[in-house]
């Protein structure tokens, strides 16, 4: 009988009951544990919960890693596919007409699809690069990299509200509480940086799903995303308290070390104690490395201009993108950027009202920075090892937002999880590809459908991780990012010439 993914999940046999126990058994030193926050892959595999039997510790990945880092550009609110990466000439022709009955009925948050007219995109699509991928004028700058991009037009899940959509895209599940994709990756691969967190998140205001979107769920808390701010103290508590100078703090740490060493003299067997001592060294280092990371003053004017830093519209996201480059440069494994948080009361990409206007504003904020990021990574040879993923909560409806009693002249679009676009670039992807398609109006994924699980399994595969084996035992069974779904043939298609 064929082993299905599900059987595999349930074939678990061995588990060490605690990290401490495992370490003691494995006789591992503490140096790496203190740095568990930024652990090396091998060290990690031994140090946490130990999915040794079929985990990734001693096994070769299915295929060699193409990517070492991920930058996930998350468009909070849900960008419309038919206005960005999924041209729909038929939809434009049918503009203003009712949705043909042949498209059936599905649930949306606000819209009764039998009550609203179709709405074609107002944005012009053009063929880009040698590959001729059609991308709308909203992403005029980003589109220059069409030949580096694989545009997946047939993505889908089933969560038509923000938190559920964000939770699907970020954690691979439709209910809150699972570990985020970044946590899984760091759990699986650790970090290459010695003094920065392995999984960094940048926000522009709060996001609807809140911190669980980048949390570690049931994985140990060390795998959660660390929020990096572009103003104030870059990382929580990384700034020395007012009135305590660096040399003073050094003296404090020396004294602390003295006391801790005395305490450990009779407790040599307890690796947690030494791990905690090392964690202070690391924390101290972070107080230098993080401000150094956040200091953009050494970047050239040309670089800053490339990202749109200094221009009102692009300054914020440009800064985030430049920071993302600096992070991967320093070995950070997973960087998650959110565009469209609630800073200044923004609704993000949530174009219920005037989608055209909303997207014009929002795209202007990110288009140049994203193009800058791609160009910069490329010129530094980092794009090859960095997987860029662009997407949002879901897509938007090809018809207007609303139902009974709503303004029929609405130019908004409701949430649409049944068919939307995500693109990837870098990380070994051979660009200029389009994967899958939606139906003629862009309502549902139609051909070569790609579920969120498939997106995640593709990401893991590109990172050299076998998504069927990256699992964590919790409450009676092994869990994985892709649950019982996922497929990795997409990864090989994306990397094929």
């Amino acid at each position, binding site marked *: 009988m064929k082993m299905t993914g599900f059987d595999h999940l349930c074939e678990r046999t061995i588990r060490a009951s605690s990290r401490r126990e495992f370490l003691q058994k494995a006789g591992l030193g503490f140096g790496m544990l203190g740095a568990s926050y930024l652990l090396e892959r091998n060290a990690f595999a031994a140090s946490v919960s130990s999915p040794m039997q079929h985990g990734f510790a001693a096994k070769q990945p299915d295929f060699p890693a193409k990517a070492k880092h991920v930058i996930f550009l998350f468009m909070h609110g849900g960008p419309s596919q038919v206005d960005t990466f999924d041209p729909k000439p038929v939809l434009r022709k049918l503009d203003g007409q009712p949705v043909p009955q042949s498209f059936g009925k599905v649930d949306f948050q606000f819209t009764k699809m039998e009550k609203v007219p179709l709405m074609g995109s107002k944005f012009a699509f053009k063929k880009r690069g040698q590959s001729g991928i059609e991308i709308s004028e909203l992403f005029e700058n980003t589109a220059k990299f069409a030949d580096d991009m694989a545009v997946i037009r047939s993505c889908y899940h089933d969560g038509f509200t923000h938190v559920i959509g964000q939770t699907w895209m970020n954690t691979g599940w439709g209910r809150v509480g699972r570990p985020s994709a970044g946590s899984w990756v760091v759990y699986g691969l650790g970090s290459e940086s010695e003094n920065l*967190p392995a999984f960094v998140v940048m926000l522009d205001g709060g996001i609807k799903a809140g911190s669980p979107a980048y949390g570690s769920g049931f994985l140990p808390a060390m795998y959660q995303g660390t929020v990096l701010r572009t103003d104030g103290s870059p990382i929580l508590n990384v700034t020395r308290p007012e009135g305590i100078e660096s040399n003073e703090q050094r003296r404090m740490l020396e004294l602390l070390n003295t*006391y801790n060493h005395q305490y450990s003299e009779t407790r040599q067997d307890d690796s947690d104690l030494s791990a905690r001592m090392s964690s202070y060294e690391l924390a101290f280092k972070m107080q230098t490395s993080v401000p150094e990371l956040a200091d953009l003053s050494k970047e050239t004017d040309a670089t800053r201009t490339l990202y749109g830093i200094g221009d009102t519209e692009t300054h914020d996201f440009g800064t985030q993108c430049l920071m993302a480059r600096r992070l991967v440069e320093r070995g950070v494994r997973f960087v998650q950027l959110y565009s469209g948080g609630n800073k200044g009361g923004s609704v993000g990409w949530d174009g219920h009202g005037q989608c055209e206007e909303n997207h014009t504003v929002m795209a202007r904020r990110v288009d140049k920075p994203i193009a800058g990021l791609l160009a910069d990574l490329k010129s530094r040879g980092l794009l090859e090892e960095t997987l860029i993923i662009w997407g949002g909560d879901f897509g938007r409806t090809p018809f207007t937002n609303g139902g009974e009693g709503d303004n029929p002249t609405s130019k908004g679009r409701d949430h649409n999880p049944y068919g939307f676009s995500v693109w990837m670039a870098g990380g070994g992807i051979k660009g200029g590809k389009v994967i899958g398609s939606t139906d003629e109006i862009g309502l549902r994924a139609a051909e070569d459908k790609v579920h969120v699980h498939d997106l995640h399994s593709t990401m893991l595969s590109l990172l050299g991780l076998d998504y069927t084996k990256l699992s964590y035992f919790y409450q009676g069974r092994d869990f994985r990012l892709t649950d019982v779904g996922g497929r990795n043939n997409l990864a090989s298609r994306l990397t094929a010439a």
Partner: protein
Amino acid sequence: MRRIPACLWLLALCFCCTLAASTAGEATRGIFEKRCLNCHGDAKTSGLDLRRLDTIQKGGAHGPAIISGNADQSLIYQAVARLGRLQMPPGKPLSDDEVKSIRQWINEGAPWDDTKASEPSWWAFKKVVRPAVPAVEPSDWVRNPIDAFVLHNLNQKGLKHVAAADKRTLVRRLYFNLHGLPPTPDEVATFVNDPAPDAYEKLVDRLLASPRYGERWGRHWLDVVRYADTGGFETDMYYANAWRYRDYVIKSFNEDKPYNQFIQEQIAGDELWPDDIELTGGYDIQPQKLKHLDARIGTALYTIGPTYHEAALNGEQLRYEWLTDAVDTTGQAFLGLTVGCARCHDHKFDPISQRDYHRMMAIFAGSEEREIPVVSKMNVFGFKSGYPNLLHVEDVKEAIQKIDQQARDRGTADVLSKFSGDVATAYKLPAKERTPKQAELSAQVFKALTQAGLLENAAGKDFTLAYTPEEQKERDRLIQLLGQAAFKASYNYPTATVLGHADVVPEIHMTSRGDFHGNGDKVGPGYPKVLGGSEDIDDKSGSGFVPERRRALALWLTDAGHPLTARVMVNRLWAWNFGQGIVGTPSDFGRQGDAPSNPELLDWLASEFVNQGWSIKKLQRIMLLSSTYRMSGEADADNLKIDAANKYSWRFNRQRMDAEELRDTVLSVSGVLNAKMGGRPVIPPLTKEEENGMWAPSQWPVSLDTAEHNRRSVYLYVKRSFPFPMFTIFDAPESSQSCPRRDVTTVAPQALALMNSSFMVDKAKLLAERVSAAHPGDAPVEVQSAWMLALSRNPSDSEKQSAARFLEKGSLAELCLVLLNTNEFLYIE
């Protein structure tokens, strides 16, 4: 293959039956137990039960499983040899040898010994049989049966217990364990200097009797029941009465409420003690009714789970999500089983079928949230008599809104005046009457209005209205009036949000793969079959004219003979006292959980628990008085080689303070802990950095009274979409589902928080002020006093010297901060 005459077969069959077993038969039984009985044992999946010969011969949905003497024709052989369409077991096939054994066993005529099959096959489902206390060599060390069980186990494994901890270690251990707070220097001295032989016992009793105990141990329970004050998700609605459940839990632990009653109240307080609570007559509720009210507040357990606001767009989904949370939480908290797997398919390891899961859902179907008064009818009426003031509030609000509307209209007219008449006309038409052209024109107006801050726009929701001076003046006056009116008005009377009954009891149907549209067979309410729940619960109405399904569940769970309830709870108590459970997976007693490290001890404790009237404190007292609990945490090289994880309790486990314990201890040591108990959640201030990432900071209204900010951690606001940052750093549970055991991580953000956070820096300063206020100008005494407060001991000479050297340049506050960062401070021995 040569045919064997039938008569020979018959002979062989008779022979084997009397002989009852053969090698192949025993091998087969082993294979069945290992690979098949999960589904075809207690759970009888597809009707097949592979434990007894008659049921094997009868078979299941596919017909007889064996034809004795003829393996090739036997369904079970065909399935394991993977010859036909039915291929078993799912997943990894049996090995060739295993298949051969089964073949041989059938061909031998299927000899079988039924007597081995009467009990459930999994240890945790078997009834607790009180084991005899093992005979160990008498010694001073064996103070009570726990020690005998532990020692017996240690002897068998070749382990030696370590020596007892010193008194200072013990007094700290007890305070932290039972109160989650450090002993004061006086309390340490009292115990250390008490030569009485029962000094330790007295201390245990005193600590168990303190209200601080419920605050600490109630918090353990709150982990298990995924407590929070909000529903989570985007809107993260506030559960205004969740705190009453939190206080109920604390009170229950403090009063040593028998655990069976504690369960009964939480699951079915309303059905077991139905009462018309507010109808007392008079102002006060009679004590008996108050007790019933308390019991009903227990059911709030089922009203504080995560709730996805938008699920209310689809009533069926909302109900399904709620039922899922109810069944999962019940399974984990009380049964210690991960039933959640069975929502979508039969459990792969434990004999919990998808049907079992839905039958448990049916127990909760027909129950729903109710808000009930917690005051007498006299008081309810009193509140209502104050409602007219609310009319005034509404009135003033409307007057304010009217002014706002005036200003908005004026602004709109201004904007419109800049457009041509056509555009204005188009805008003024009802939306449905506009032509497409007019719709475009009106869109221009919308855009302009949005830009002028008069309409909701894409970038924000703030309006900017321009008032005339008169309007502004009047508005200011009204706002003030609104405040006064609101202050005088009486709002709703105090209520509790508890479980009650819906008007209609919805049917529960089997669902497919977790899709909430249940179209499958209708199922009735019941418990898992494996635990004896073959029959549906008798659904006749009780005195309250409602189905009393939860009542039945509660009584079943608290039956003295229930195999899981007591075992699961004593294991939790053990884990919370000793740092790890006898079963390492406190909410998974199934086949994927850890095996008990000392099964006899577990069963003795479970039986003792029931014998002692399910008294948590009594059982805990036995644990705390044992020599096992009083051991030191010292290492032993030989023991480490055999049992590095201390699974068999040869020493005490060193434990890092948990998040709440750490915060409370720092507050206590610095002298500012506010010991006030109970009440609505306290919302502490956040730094700007901490606040970053919260979707709606308006949902974090910081408590005005700063003394409140120093309340114990158990009283802090638990917001599901935004866990308190310091707690997250120190591994507090995320509260979307039951947490059986917290992780303990060691990461740099903890060091950063302890060294740099304003909370720690402020408290270190307070500690410095505290010690210098008591001993102004006397540095060595200040240092000594700080050590006593933080570590319950005097500094050593070398510590004094290094402290003095540090103080030549550094401040006392800095020294205190160092002290609060030491491993000795953070780890309890």
